[in-house]
């Protein structure tokens, strides 16, 4: 069934978009990630302009992460104080990110920067995750126990000033790395239309030593807050959030996520991480190929806003 998208100004097949939302939702439920990094490229590859794809996925991430955040909140697996600091700095980051987004769009380099960021971050995170999970799998096969994480271990991030106490996470750390992480994820999130969970979760675990049972709930709150602000900012400054597109994606996404989470409960953690790593790497490589391959058409058109419409 064709449906006309009022902001993207093109008709799309509703069931294909719904299916995309559902498939990405399934994967996000399976791996416990937002799925924005899969959805934005899928939309771009299916012909929706990068500007609309990024902004509409932002709204979709709000739906999927808030849905999951509510579950974690009910189980009391969230450090609200840490989440508060992260959201506050994330909002600053989103404002910067949306500003960069508008600027790049005017210069005609938005698509390039989105592609470059995808290649860099997906390649990096995918590569790290893959090596880590393969090591864990080899250890498991040899019967060696996984190396225990010593909770008392400190790194450079713990030596910085402006310390703050987070009771729920049993942490006493400087706010500087927390703010830096929040701002960084905010910029990336609004620029790329991703929640940034796949960067935020490892950063919180390895850099700040946030306990693993708290980390996912807390990062979900950060994503919901930051992406909600990014959605509002995108619609005030770029007018590129397509509500109809976002709604179809949301409904597909939240349904898919429920099934994904059920399947995910039966798969081993290291295998799950290896699969996610391959997926992340795959998307990164796809973007890389597009960057270096001679394009089918060297020319492109962009209508400048503010004309007759």
């Amino acid at each position, binding site marked *: 069934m064709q449906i006309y998208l009022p*902001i993207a100004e093109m008709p799309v097949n509703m069931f294909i978009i719904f299916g995309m939302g559902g498939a990405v939702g399934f994967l996000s439920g399976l791996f416990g990630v937002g799925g924005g990094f899969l959805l934005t490229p899928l939309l771009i590859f299916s012909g929706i302009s990068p500007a609309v794809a990024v902004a509409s996925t932002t*709204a979709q991430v709000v739906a999927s*992460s808030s849905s999951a955040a509510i579950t974690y909140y*009910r189980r009391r697996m969230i450090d609200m104080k840490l989440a508060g600091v992260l959201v506050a700095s994330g909002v600053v980051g989103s404002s910067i990110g949306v500003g960069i987004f508008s600027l790049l769009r005017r210069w005609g380099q938005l698509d390039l920067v989105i592609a470059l960021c995808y290649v860099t971050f997906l390649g990096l995170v995918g590569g790290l995750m893959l090596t880590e999970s393969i090591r864990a799998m080899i250890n498991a096969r040899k019967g060696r126990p996984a190396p225990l994480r010593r909770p008392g271990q400190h790194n450079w991030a713990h030596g910085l000033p402006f310390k703050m106490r987070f009771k729920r996470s049993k942490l006493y750390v400087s706010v500087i790395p927390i703010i830096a992480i929040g701002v960084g994820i905010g910029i990336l999130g609004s620029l790329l239309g991703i929640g940034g969970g796949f960067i935020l979760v490892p950063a919180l675990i390895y850099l700040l030593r946030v306990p693993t049972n708290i980390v996912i709930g807390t990062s979900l709150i950060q994503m919901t807050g930051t992406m909600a602000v990014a959605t509002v900012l995108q619609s005030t400054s770029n007018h590129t959030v397509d509500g109809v597109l976002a709604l179809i994606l949301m409904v597909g996404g939240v349904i898919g996520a*429920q099934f994904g989470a059920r399947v995910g409960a039966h798969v081993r953690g290291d295998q799950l991480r290896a699969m996610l790593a391959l997926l992340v790497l795959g998307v990164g490589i796809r973007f890389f190929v597009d960057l270096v391959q001679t394009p089918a058409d060297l020319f492109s058109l962009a209508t400048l806003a503010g004309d*007759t419409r």
Partner: protein
Amino acid sequence: MTRFAAWFTLCALALAATQARAEQLIVALSAEEVRITSNFTGTSITVFGAIERDAATVSRAEFYDVVVSIKGPPETVVTRRKDRLVGIWLNSESRTFVNIPSFYAVNSSRPLSEVTTPQILKRFQIGADDLVFPVSAGDGAQSAGQDDAFRQAFVRLKQQDGLYRTEAYGVKFPGTEIFQTAVQIPANVPVGRYVVTVYLFRDGAMLASDQSEIRISKMGFEQFTFDLAHNQGLIYGLICVILAVFTGWLAGLIFRRD
């Protein structure tokens, strides 16, 4: 039904017209307004017309030629070219065309080059090749010539999107002095005022022309959403966020396991 009504109007008009000119064009459109709603997947506009001769004009042996052009609202478009820089393809050179029709369709009874002379085509800007392409002030030249690479790319990309189209034998003559043609309007058309111009030729000379207008606009929900997003971005954004949180909450409620 609309077709029938249009024919009827046409006949009525033909009877009423009593102007003392050699040849006169009477034109009717199948629709003066195109509404874009949620199930819009493009449409087709039919242009009907009659050539009227007054009694003093003798019937001549040559055939008439009719050219119908539809021009969409003007827009400003940047055409960019990718170049390779350290192995990566990125947008480098660009040219900005101002006041260029966002949509342009030309249907004619024969190929334009057979209908009339290049001078007349140029003077009346008939056909994509003879449109004037004004270039924005920053880009040097005032307008781009026919052999400009950016201009050629622009026309080619517009043709690929179905927004620039030509049908060399698109105008049909069911009777010797009655013509009709259909112009496809694809789903990705911009909204606004479209100008329909009909030119009548014989023997390469332009005898008459007629201009009318079509409005293409979004309707109902589409119009409301678009206006809200562009004029009240803050409210629109907040609605999207509330919708998202509500969807998330609802899903959690429906699929709640504990």
